[in-house]
């Protein structure tokens, strides 16, 4: 059985769901950021798989993946700044203790 588009999409779905589960359950904010990066990578895999199987000569999916990487870099920079600010304020980054916006 040769490798096709379905294999890549299922792999991407598996990685996305692992990242989703981690982002929903972990209490360490840095681990949550890592899981978000996993999810963005999963999306990139599916974009590039679509690009090279559906429109092999156009590369549109790869251009999209580049923009996803740009946004991921911006996200991780701001996210870590927020995490460090939270750490300074609460002296910890356990998300159970962060309840400033909880009413």
């Amino acid at each position, binding site marked *: 059985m040769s*490798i096709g*588009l379905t*294999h*890549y*999409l*299922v*792999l991407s*779905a*598996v990685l*996305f*769901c*692992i*990242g*989703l*589960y981690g982002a*929903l*359950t*972990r*209490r*360490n*904010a*840095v*681990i949550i*950021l*890592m899981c978000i*990066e996993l999810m963005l*990578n999963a999306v*990139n*895999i599916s974009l*590039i798989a679509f*690009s*090279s*199987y*559906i*429109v*092999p000569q156009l*590369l*549109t999916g*790869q251009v999209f*993946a*580049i*923009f996803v*990487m*740009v*946004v991921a*870099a*911006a996200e*991780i*920079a*701001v996210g*870590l*700044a*927020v*995490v*460090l*600010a939270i*750490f300074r304020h609460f002296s*910890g980054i*356990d*998300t159970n203790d962060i309840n400033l916006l909880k009413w």
Partner: protein
Amino acid sequence: MGLEFAFWIMAVVMVGAAFAVLYLRNVFHAALALVLCFIAVAGIYVTLSADFLAAVQILVYVGAISVLIILGVMMTREVQKGNPVNKMRLPAAIVAVVLLGILVYVVTSTPWGISTQDPLTPTTMPLATKLFSENGFILPVEIGAVLLLAAILGAIVIIREKKK
């Protein structure tokens, strides 16, 4: 044959490293597992004949983002406390498994219009033409530059110590 072999190795390494990110007790080890996962994703890109993106993946994710994350791990000194889970474990697992089931069902039952052409290689020059040409993606590239500038400035403003 070689491509299939490479795909399965990369897929197993990738999923294993992703689970290691979740289940390793030490946060620093989890960050290293994340780096391994990024490298495996770069290998997946190579099997998809996206050579430029594989290089960018190594440079941006393995090089830059992992350094930022390890810096975050070290700055927050939470390594000793391990990797605790919250109370939403079972609902989150149900949500993730149901979403995975739906995605796999949709992916396997959709008739994809697979093209018979071979993918373009090498991709660097066509990508540059697409990104920077007149009718290409030059406006999104400029917006991406502004976004990165705004993110850098925002990170500096958020992280700055307040002067008393």
